């Protein structure tokens, strides 16, 4: 069963965060990814660039609008995702609780519905 861990947290730039905290965070995410990999549950992971660099497309009245900025302008932003394959929600919750960002933001555990293999959709689990 696939779950996507959605990491939401307040965005901090490298300047206000400080070199040391940034490096500590990177180390924590490295060992988290290594642990997921070693447990053979990691499908993929991605840490995103800050929402200041995001671009949002919307369509209204048939016209495509391209806008600077995130879809929802909130204090906490989606900062990264981990897709894991585990037995059930309890296992997913256990991994989610170990995500380093749980110390400074929310981790959402969302079951997957379908995913693609070689471009074809497949039901989850």
């Amino acid at each position, binding site marked *: 069963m696939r779950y996507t861990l959605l990491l939401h947290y307040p965005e901090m730039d490298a300047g206000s965060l400080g070199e040391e905290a940034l490096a500590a965070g990177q180390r924590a995410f490295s060992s988290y990814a290594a642990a997921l990999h070693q447990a053979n549950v990691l499908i993929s992971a991605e840490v995103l660039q800050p929402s200041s660099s995001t671009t949002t497309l919307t369509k209204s009245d048939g016209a495509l609008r391209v806008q600077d900025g995130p879809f929802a302008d909130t204090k906490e932003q989606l900062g990264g995702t981990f897709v894991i394959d585990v037995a059930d*929600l309890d296992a997913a919750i256990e991994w989610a609780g170990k995500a380093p960002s749980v110390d400074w933001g929310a981790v959402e555990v969302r079951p997957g519905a379908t995913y693609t293999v070689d471009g074809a959709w497949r039901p989850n689990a």
Partner: protein
Amino acid sequence: MTSPEARTAARQAAEHAARASYGRLVALLAASTGDLSLAEDALSAAFEQALVSWPTGGVPANPEGWLLAVARNRQRDTWKSASSRTTRPLEDAALGGGPAMAALDDLDLDAIGDKRLELLFTCAHPAIDASIRTPLMLQVVLGFDAARIAAAFAVPATAMAQRLVRAKKRIKTARIPFTVPGRTDMPGRLPAVLEAIYGCYALSFADAPDVPGGSDAEDLAGEALYLAVTLAALLRTEPEAWGLAALITLSQARAPARGGPFIPLEEQDTSLWDARLIAEGGAHLRRAAAGGAAGRFQMEAAIQAVHCDRARTGRTDCPALRTLYTALEAVAPSLGARVALAAVIGSTESPAAGLSALDALRDLREGEGPAGASAVESFQPYLATRAELLARDGRPSEAAAAFAAAAEAAPQPVVREYLWQRAAGQWPNSQGRDNGPAPLPLR
């Protein structure tokens, strides 16, 4: 040939199986799919089929096994039709053929293990909204229909049905497991299960109908007792599970004194109390105490045990109550425990001391903000206890106003009636008692 006797026997057998094993059968059916709705539909179809086949063919030797086999066939048919649409492989290819009817009597549910325990933990999973846990248990473990649950919670039936469907869908979609947590996770997970079972018991009080006997409230109390004792027995050595079992058993022991007009606990005729349940509750409490550190339910059970002991000794051990309420307040602070403690102080020291304790409680909450004080002042047990203490302190006009306020806030009609009579200066249902402790917020 369907005789009326055969129909009656078949219906009774089906009803017995439904009551005794509904939760077990649902748990067994849903364990492999995670789909509670599908399991419930399959089981209700099996019950329907039983009511058709049993009167003519006779009640099978193993009714539960029969129901399980028929429900499993139903479930498989649903999978098959679903799999032809989605090409999803069958969950369990080994279940391919229908079970031979001859093998049914060999199907030993006890050997499979009691899956109700798993089901209780699923219903009270942290990923399930706390307010729907008790309704979910009532439905999937005990087989109450949505309309009855809705009535007990005083919400519209359609709203309750929708919430139950959503919760079950969530269990399936998010794959909330049907497992009993391991030793490390147990402390974090057990309280929600106990809370939900306690919620089922509390419900039997909240909406207690005026008419004694055969009511939904009595059913709810009985089912909560059954769930609590089952949970404690299945977990074997969890102190708080035995504590809850003891609490509900001892409280239920006093149920025969509850029908009819309201009589405060201290004035109830102890000969009406159920001696067998008092003994059982005491045994549960000893099992709880054997497990070590005393938690909230164990202390509340000990408080009940002190009250029940009046049946044996003829008096209530108020100093013991005071010790227990003080300890309860330390372990699990609550408004109810503080008010009860004030009532006991009113008995062990003086009514004035009890009133001071109530004032201190209101002032404490007031310090937390205006909402805190108003929460205290609208808390019915606070109002009732204050009224009683004022009356005993020899302040009749203040007591009358306080009894009226307590009556306004009382949810149960019999309590309201009693408090209005007290407001009018009468002492209903009393044989000239004078110095007993104030009525606790317990009945």
